[in-house]
């Protein structure tokens, strides 16, 4: 293969270069340029000296993350929550997508899809209010139902163990409609002839789903998983903050890196420490996504991201 210079390539594919330029610029400005700000993680930031003028202070900014032993706990929580949410919300999304594409009535199908999609538009602030009104001890819906049936009131807010599930359920409820769209798109692109052939061979609905639908959308599933894994150390701050609030009793079970950092740095506006936490998240994310991608590459090279 003959290699050509950049100028030659440029002349030949002017239109293509022109089309890709905005994206390249956007990525540079929004993703690469801000990376220089990561030096803050190693600096004692002063407003009058600026990002690059401030003094270096080594790993001092990272110390507070691990000072009270919270570092490991919140890292573990963040990863476990994301894994749980990944499995539940993606799994549910696939199931929903398959069911919706099997539905035949057009109007019923549209209505179902819209209803499932709706929670995506509700902000976490509102969801937080829902959660409080369901679970609070005095006037919550749950306790009202329990007492109506003659049971003892339960104080859900002092039971850390159930919160991972509550959070997981609300997360799935909110995202499932949105995620299923992508799978529905993948399913509609499957060649209808496959299903016709299966019909002639006498396959039932479940066999068709299992032997045709799933294998066909496998690349989509893997790509979605990889994309989600890249965010595995970013807790959905809004969700945790709005659902849990300032309830210290639940922190051990519900604290993620983002909420911990937000809470502890709210009071001293230390940009260095915030940057250190972000840096820590980014590096871990990078390592995890590289590892997962390598594994995918080993197993099925075509499906890897890069």
């Amino acid at each position, binding site marked *: 293969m003959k290699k050509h*210079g*950049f*100028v030659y390539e440029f002349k030949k594919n002017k239109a293509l270069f022109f089309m890709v330029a905005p994206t390249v610029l956007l990525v*540079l*400005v929004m993703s690469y*340029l801000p990376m220089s700000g990561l030096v803050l993680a190693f600096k004692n*930031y*002063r*407003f*009058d*000296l*600026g990002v690059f003028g401030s003094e270096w202070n080594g790993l*001092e900014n990272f*110390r*507070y993350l691990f*000072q*009270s*032993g*919270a570092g490991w706990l919140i890292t573990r929580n963040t990863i476990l929550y994301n894994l749980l949410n990944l499995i539940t919300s993606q799994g549910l999304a696939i199931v929903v997508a398959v069911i919706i594409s099997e539905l035949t009535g057009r109007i019923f199908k549209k209505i179902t899809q819209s209803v499932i999609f709706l929670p995506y538009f509700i902000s976490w602030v509102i969801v*937080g*209010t829902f*959660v*409080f009104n369901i*679970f*609070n*001890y*005095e006037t*919550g819906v749950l306790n009202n139902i329990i007492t109506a049936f003659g049971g003892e009131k339960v*104080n*859900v*807010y*002092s039971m850390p163990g159930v919160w991972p599930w509550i959070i997981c359920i609300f997360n799935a409820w909110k995202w499932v409609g949105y995620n299923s769209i992508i799978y529905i798109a993948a399913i509609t692109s499957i060649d209808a002839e496959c299903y016709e052939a299966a019909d002639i061979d006498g396959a039932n609905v479940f066999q068709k789903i299992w032997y045709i639908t799933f294998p066909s959308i496998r690349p989509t599933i893997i790509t979605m998983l990889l994309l989600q894994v890249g965010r595995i150390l970013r807790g959905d701050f809004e969700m945790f903050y709005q659902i*849990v*609030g*300032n*309830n*210290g*009793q639940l*922190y051990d079970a519900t604290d993620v890196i983002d909420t*911990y950092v937000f*809470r*502890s*740095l*709210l*009071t*001293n*506006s*230390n*940009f260095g*420490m915030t940057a250190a936490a972000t840096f820590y998240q980014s590096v871990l994310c990078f390592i995890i996504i590289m590892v997962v991608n390598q594994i995918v590459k080993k197993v099925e090279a075509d499906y890897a991201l890069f």
Partner: protein
Amino acid sequence: MKRTIRLTALLLVAALLVCACTACGTGKGKASSEDTPSSGAASSEAAGEDISKKVELSMYVVSDRPVVQDQVEENYNKVFEEKLNCTLKVNWIGWAEYKNKYPLLFSSGEVFDMAYTSTWLNFSPLARKGAFKELDELWPKYAPKNYERQSEMALRQSKVNGHSYCIPTLLGTYSASGPTYRTDILEGTDWDGKMETIADYEEFLEYAKEAAPEMEPYNVYQSGSDMDEVYMKSKGLYGLTGGFLWLDPSEEKPQVFTYYEYGDTPEFLTMMSRWNEKGFFSKSALSDTDSQKFRGGKAASRITNLDAYPDEYIRHPEWGVKYANLVSDVSNLPFTQDAMAIASTSKNPERALMLYDLITSDQEVFNAFYYGVEGVNYKIIDGQIENLAPDDFVYSACWSARTPEFDMDDYGSPADLPDIRASFDSHIEEMKGEGSQKYTGFVMDTAAIETEFAACQNVHQQYWWPLELAYTDAESGLQEYEEKMEVAGIERIREEVQRQLDEYLDSLKEK
């Protein structure tokens, strides 16, 4: 050849990017202060300073922007232009975003002149990190009338690392804390109406629970309970920044301590668990975001400072709202509770200070700046002020500009308000700078212990808040709190703060 071309292309892109970035940097700054030649209309000399050049000053305050800000601004700018040949533009940072946006003001490099600041906006950490201009010489020179009236305590509080970085308010506020409570719900019961101690308050809560079971007797929501502070302060103790360090002002050489080292803490926790059992507050309070339960008629009392009392009283005169202070040794809150700072990027600190001096020393200018347009925004009735359109303009958010001479109570304020204030003032006078008042000038410097401090604050919130509300078991909870605080580095904080405190006391003796 190929390589050089590639390199040039890359460099070009980089250069372009840098240009784009610097362009937006300077573009932003320009709007805030621009020097234009004088119109010549104004007097070019004021207090011996050259003001022949017209200056546009800008100020940041934290609050939601009022609807009629433009009219108010136009009104006071006429006065400012006439007296000091300058205009002032006030920028508002809304309540929803101030926590993130306020510190970013100083890191963005934006050019502006003044900013409202306060202990709750992290005045001293920001000052230490170079957000504000140092005022050691500028302040006495350009704002002499203000400087002269500052108390020794206030001057001390304005300093960080030995230099002044802000102009504290001249209006003293008090460390008073206690219940603001409704008396209408207890009418017809045999409640004696006494409210002098925490035990009286407990009695009130008991009656309230019975008389109005649909209400929460004591309003607690997600920002936690204030009873811990009331309890400690009712014992005459003095609390330091952060909420977990205390000292006893009655000692000659006070030792800094925290909750689990205090002998009466178990007693306090027993009391709180009694309150919890009786349902005096919600069992899910820390996840409740409704901060207006009292105002909305869903709670019978809340713990507040003195300032919240007239506000609640005026809103519902029919509720018979009353206030009682339970703090035994009331002192002035740090004057940096409300303060004005000059941004380190300011181009016209002199004029900004002159303007601030004028605002805090001239009633007419103050009214125009703080209360708005007379007859439109406010009306003065018998030395009290009535806001004619509270939805349009709730007065300026530059609360630091208030002075004891110019500040007026709201029209319809409770009749006992001046008496309460007078009793605080006379108490402070009686103490002659001893007791709590002695320590109000002490400003903790957390620079050396920032990591530990952040960690301890976190532990305090995670373990003490639920413990205080008796959501966790008193004995094992307190033990866990202690263990976690120790891991977080409380020992280092205590040592450092103790050292600073001793230094402070020595410096007082030298005088």
